């Protein structure tokens, strides 16, 4: 009896740590450098980043669950091809949904919604995690990693939107006196902002490690 109970607590803890690791310790963008193409391309504003992030959340949870369900049926040799087809199906669903209900956003994101198919985060988690773990753990892992991705995208999009257009989610933040940095909305702004975000994360990690020593 006691055993089952401690077992339950352990699974609970494990699920929580699988969920939380995607936000900082194994953040897909800042640590694993995966899914860089959509990260850089669509983050001209916070809302674009959020839409892209949520699209990835949907595709990733859906495909992780399916991959985990079929993991014992699919022969090893064709598993990558199978995963890719599963992912492509979910991406098609998101794409058609956006076209039907949010046409403006769909146009703003353009071909980067279909490009989620080759987003290495999703295939990476399918191969490294979902194909080896139970449905529940795969779901939690997918949610954690994809929400970590979303938060990073909104953050990056927010910085670029505030400095490039003086707004955040369309609301005016900086006054008229601030001259917008148009370069932030162009490709160079994406690369440079993300570069400094990586640098800031490294700096915080190093400071935290130093503090732990004493």
């Amino acid at each position, binding site marked *: 009896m006691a055993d089952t109970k401690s077992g339950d607590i352990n699974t609970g803890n494990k699920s929580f740590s699988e969920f939380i690791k995607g936000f900082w310790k194994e953040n897909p963008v800042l640590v694993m*450098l*995966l899914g*860089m*193409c*959509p990260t*850089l*391309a669509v983050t001209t504003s916070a809302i674009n980043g959020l839409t892209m992030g949520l699209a990835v959340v949907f595709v990733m949870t859906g495909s992780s669950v399916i991959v985990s369900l079929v993991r014992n049926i699919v022969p090893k040799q064709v598993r*990558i*091809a199978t995963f*890719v*087809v599963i992912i*492509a*199906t979910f*991406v*098609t669903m998101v*794409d*058609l949904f956006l076209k039907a209900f949010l046409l403006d956003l769909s146009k703003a994101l353009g*071909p980067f919604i*279909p*490009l989620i*198919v*080759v*987003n*290495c985060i999703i*295939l990476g988690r399918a191969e490294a995690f979902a194909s080896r773990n139970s449905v529940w753990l795969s779901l939690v892992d997918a949610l954690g990693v994809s929400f970590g991705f979303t938060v990073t995208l909104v953050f990056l999009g927010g910085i670029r939107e505030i400095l490039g257009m003086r707004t955040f989610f369309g609301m005016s933040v900086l006054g008229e006196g601030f001259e917008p940095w148009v*370069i932030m909305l*162009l*490709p*160079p*702004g*994406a*690369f*440079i902002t*993300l*570069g*400094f975000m*990586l*640098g*800031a994360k*490294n*700096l915080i990690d*190093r400071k935290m490690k130093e503090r732990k020593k004493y």
Partner: protein
Amino acid sequence: MEVILIFISAVLVNNFVLSYFLGICPFIGVSDRIESAVSMGFAVTFVLTLSAAITWLINRYILIALNVPFLEYVSYIIVIASLVQFVEMFIRKTSKTLYDALGIYLPLITTNCAILGLALFGALRDYSFIENIVFGIGAGIGFTLALVVMAGIREELDLADVPESLKGAAITLIIAGLLALAFMGFAGLISA
């Protein structure tokens, strides 16, 4: 004339890496030495050109002819994955030297978003067969150019005094930003 414009546009003005953000993963991962950058660039150019031809045919004679455009992504990705596999087997049988030079980069190309991106952009812009192939070659050469320039800079960077926190991927991204800034200077080429 149209074809030349498409080529120059894909190589310089709308460089796949620096203005469309396609193929960033290999751009950051494989750009630390010039030699590997050149190998990767050639492998990608090769697959891009082939897939430009094949995806155009699929789009025109299967997807549009049978009226099943919603199968676009699924069919493109299957074609690209099998194409890469096929190219790998073909090169291994015919040229051992080339196969050794490309090494692990070949299978990695499947998840290079530049390949799928090219198929999608080509379909979106309604290019003719020849135009689409030229677009593929141009995109490949543009990718190689960006990769080799980046590798050249990163080799020099070994000697530079980079702040501790910015070492690795962070400084690579910042350099890519400056490169993108430089490539924006080509924007005047086409409209002129």
